[in-house]
């Protein structure tokens, strides 16, 4: 798992319940806005269907690594916070690093305790989607069409 993501997960894991809630809210607030060119591409092909809220995800190849951009509504702070965690922790990572993220990340971050089982399923879906999009972006790059956003 990339170092940056590992640090964030450790921080969440070591926090108590209230601190975890505050960390997630801080993450939700710090998600950077989509670049204008991607804002225009927010359509169904970039929407994360596993999420009840409108979450949009873009994975783009850049200089041997993958850049991740995402958007989620502030009215759904849990999913926005988790999306922000993935963007912060994984953007700029290699395909190997992204695929090495454990699938029980949500649990490892101690989020099951604050969210409950039913709510974490959607979040696990976001991680699966990041991995799938990263794989597609990598395949796109190796086929020589690495200049366009693939999602």
């Amino acid at each position, binding site marked *: 798992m990339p170092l940056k993501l590992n640090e964030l997960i450790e921080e969440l894991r070591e926090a108590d319940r209230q601190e975890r*809630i*505050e960390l*997630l*809210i801080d993450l*939700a607030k710090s998600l950077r806005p989509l670049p204008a060119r991607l804002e225009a591409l927010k359509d169904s092909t970039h929407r994360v*269907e*596993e*999420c*009840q*809220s409108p979450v949009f995800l873009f994975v783009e190849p850049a200089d041997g690594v993958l850049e991740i951009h995402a958007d989620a509504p502030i*009215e*759904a*702070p*849990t*999913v926005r*916070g988790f999306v922000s965690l993935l963007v912060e922790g994984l953007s700029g990572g290699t395909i190997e690093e992204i695929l090495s993220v454990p699938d029980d990340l949500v649990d490892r971050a101690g989020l099951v305790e*604050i*969210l*409950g089982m*039913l*709510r974490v*399923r*959607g979040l696990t*879906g976001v991680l699966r989607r990041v991995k799938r999009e990263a794989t597609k972006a990598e395949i796109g790059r190796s086929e020589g069409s690495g200049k366009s956003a693939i999602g």
Partner: protein
Amino acid sequence: MPETYAHPEVLVTSAWVLDHKSDPKVRIVESDEDVLLYEMGHVPGAVKIDWQGDLQDQLIRDYIGADKFAQICSRCGIAPDTTVVFYGDKSNWWACYAFWAFKLFGHADCRIINGGRKLWVDRNLPLTKEVPHYPATDYKVGESGEKRIRAFRDDVFEHLKAKKPLLDVRSPKEFTGEMLHMEDYPQEGSLRGGHIPGAKSVPWSRAVNDDGTFKSASELKAIYEKEIGLKSTDDVIAYCRIGERSSLTWFVLTYLLGYPNVRNYDGSWCEWGNLVRVPIAKGA
């Protein structure tokens, strides 16, 4: 003269909430789908009760027991004669669920803030991050409302045989069986798709306006009575996926239209769609 709700007192306005903000007999409760919303800012004086973490048993699929419920009320400064006013996200979907759970334990005076969290925020009404603390109460749980408002799978089976009205409040694609779970929601593990035979499809969202408020009495009657053919004397069971959306429909039929015999089947499709050899219908 416009038709009024059967029990108009169960819906309160934001102005009423602001007028009662220091009333010790009134407790405001936020219940949301997104568990972080309360911490981002809530109605001043409101406490948080989570449908999952607080009201559901963590081991078996059921609600908490009476002792645990009494502890939660005590912690929130709720006495048996407190007016408990619920609000939340998603058009008060979870607020209605918490309301229904409070009625399971026989709490007398429960109300809903019409428009829920969305309307409150959209009107730029005050929000605070301050978590209030109230003196603990000695809460005695009243007479259980379970028999009147909760249906179990055997009750549904009897209902089905007697051809009594069943309402399926899920989305149209869940009803037809085209989709096993709510669109955009995670799959929650039903092995079969479709609906309980004889159930009529009335998605829960038809009862609410875009601003989160409930539709008027005449609009609701046009849907549930003229279109679906229900009568106020009917014995009705409503269900959805896990009983959350149907608690909103239960609230609408019981309190806004005044039907005395409505039950929520909280086992819902996550139970029925997994039972061996129960009848299932597919298609519209």
